[in-house]
């Protein structure tokens, strides 16, 4: 029993630390545009991010966590030696953490998700045996890494094209913005809510029928859109600033929309990335408590909450600084462009979360930004970064795997 407590303790510490890292660095991607464009103050952004990251993690993080916990390794093979799974999960974390540290020291755009998945595959394939890996599932996950940025890019392209056609290229962009932006708000709120209701909530034990889910999603989205429309109605043009920048007031209208998409993005991020921090924890706990690997039991809600809290703590301690720095650098992402990227990325990510696919939220957002760029929406995109991301894809999985194999054998000999 003592050993089990050590495992759970270690796992909880690792998990919170990982979640803290995610909160400190990655949440900025969701909120920085809103702060950079002054749609939100930094204080409001942190508050909104904390609330929606937590909600995303707890309400919609279950499916991806389940995948990390039992979808990659074949749990059945551990029936006789459950402690090996515990070593493996701990090793995977150490491996992912180490790799992320090395990568961030060198400025490589490495994904947390890719590192964790690579690490789990690594310890399972070498430490246990090639058959321990559910290769079919791993293949699907890897395909989803390619598909998710492409999908986000395509959606972002279409959204921004529609914004240009319906609003920006018209003779009266402000009137058109005031008329159409509430519909975009509805779309953003509807997508996030619907996917969560349909796919996410079953993991926290709430079952809502499909018809009711649609009805509820429409109701919630409509309510948010109406609040948004009221806020938009109060925006008055500022002739002095308009003269310098015709789209000044139009962008302020989009600023309202951007608050909604930033919240969706934070929610989506929480729903997918919380698994990186607590997926292994969930696995360790179920082994330690029952002495065996049970892929059927649901993940305890408190585990998701631990992950969510870790992210919020990371956000509160370092997030402010990162949001401010990133916000300054991405001013090209004005609200009209930023919302298109965020809405596309958030929709793609929540759908991935709903189907249990652990994807890279950052790379998905990058794909979305490129989509806006293809719609001639962004002044200058540095393609070298895109190249570096592609290289990091190829390198990260083997690196995570090698490191976790190393840690696995060390832990196996050191731990009781």
């Amino acid at each position, binding site marked *: 029993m003592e050993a089990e407590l050590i495992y759970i303790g270690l796992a909880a510490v690792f998990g919170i630390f990982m979640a803290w890292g995610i909160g400190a660095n990655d949440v900025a991607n969701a909120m920085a545009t809103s702060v950079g464009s002054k749609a939100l103050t930094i204080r409001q952004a942190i508050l909104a991010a904390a609330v929606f990251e937590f909600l995303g993690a707890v309400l919609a993080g279950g499916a991806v966590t389940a995948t990390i916990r039992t979808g990659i390794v074949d749990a059945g093979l551990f029936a006789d030696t459950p402690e090996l799974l515990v070593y493996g999960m701990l090793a995977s974390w150490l491996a992912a953490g180490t790799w992320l540290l090395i990568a961030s020291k060198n400025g490589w755009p490495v994904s947390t998700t890719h590192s964790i998945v690579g690490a789990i595959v690594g310890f399972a394939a070498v430490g246990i045996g090639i058959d321990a890996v559910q290769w079919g599932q791993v293949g699907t996950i890897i395909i989803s890494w390619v598909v998710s940025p492409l999908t986000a890019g395509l959606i972002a392209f279409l959204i921004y094209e529609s914004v240009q056609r319906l609003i920006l290229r018209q003779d009266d962009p402000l009137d058109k913005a005031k008329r159409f932006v509430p519909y975009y708000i509805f779309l953003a709120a509807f997508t996030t809510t619907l996917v969560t209701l349909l796919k996410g909530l079953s993991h926290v034990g709430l079952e809502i029928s499909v018809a009711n889910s649609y009805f509820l999603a429409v109701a919630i989205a409509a309510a948010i859109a109406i609040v948004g429309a009221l806020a938009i109605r109060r925006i008055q043009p500022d002739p002095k600033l308009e003269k310098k920048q015709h789209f000044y007031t139009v962008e302020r209208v989009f600023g309202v929309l951007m608050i909604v998409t930033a919240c969706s993005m934070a929610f989506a991020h929480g729903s997918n990335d919380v698994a990186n921090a607590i997926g292994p924890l969930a696995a360790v706990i179920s082994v330690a408590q029952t002495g065996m690997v049970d892929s059927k039991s649901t993940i305890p809600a408190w585990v998701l909450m631990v992950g969510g809290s870790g992210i919020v703590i990371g956000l509160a301690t370092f997030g402010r600084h*990162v949001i401010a720095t*990133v916000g300054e*650098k*991405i001013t090209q992402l004005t609200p009209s462009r930023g919302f298109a990227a965020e809405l596309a990325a958030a929709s793609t990510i929540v759908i991935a979360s709903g189907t249990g696919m652990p994807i890279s939220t950052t790379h998905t957002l990058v794909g979305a930004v490129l989509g806006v760029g293809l719609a001639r929406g*962004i*002044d*200058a995109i*540095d393609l070298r970064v895109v190249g570096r991301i592609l290289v990091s894809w190829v390198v990260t999985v083997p690196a995570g795997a090698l490191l976790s194999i190393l840690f696995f054998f060390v832990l196996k000999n050191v731990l009781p």
Partner: protein
Amino acid sequence: MVNVLASLFGASPVQPLEKHIDIAYQSSKLLIPFFEAVIAGDWTKATEIRERIVAYENEADDLKKQIRLGLPKSLFMPVPREDLLELLLVQDKIANRAKDVSGLVLGRKMQIPAVMAEDFMGFIRRTVDAAKQARKSVRELDELYATGFRGAEVNLVTNLIEELDRIETETDELQIRVRASLFAVESTLDPVNVVFLYRVIELTGEIGDMAERVGRRLELLLS
């Protein structure tokens, strides 16, 4: 910690280009008080204004270099990099010519014959108008980027460029008039001075030409 999203964005050339045309316009605008001082024979004032023109020209040069450095080949932009660099080059020449013409006049302490002074100042003012209209057109760049170079904004810029062309045509006509009035009195003047007066008229005319070429370059971005 390097944030991927932050490093994805290259330096936007839009605001710097708008700033650059503003500096170029400011330097050309100073030609009005400069020639007024020259005609009044106030060389201390002319020297002082010329220094300000040179300062603007230097500032424009620095900014030009900075913009070029900020536009590596790896950038993905809605318009070709070459077109932007060409636009920048033409903008820069407005400031260059303002410096050249004021330098020439000051260096030779040139007198503008009284009979042609009025026509000459009219010519200078209209040339500065052309530079101002060029600035107004380039200032629409950020809006053009936002709309993806299509729609109502394109019509707006096209109209601005048409107006720029009209102003430039006027400066051409004024230039012919100034030449004619110089021709009428040239036999009474020192021949060397006359040669350089034609050169001053020519250089000033080039400012109008450059302003017009700014319009042409912008038009290329629209197509």
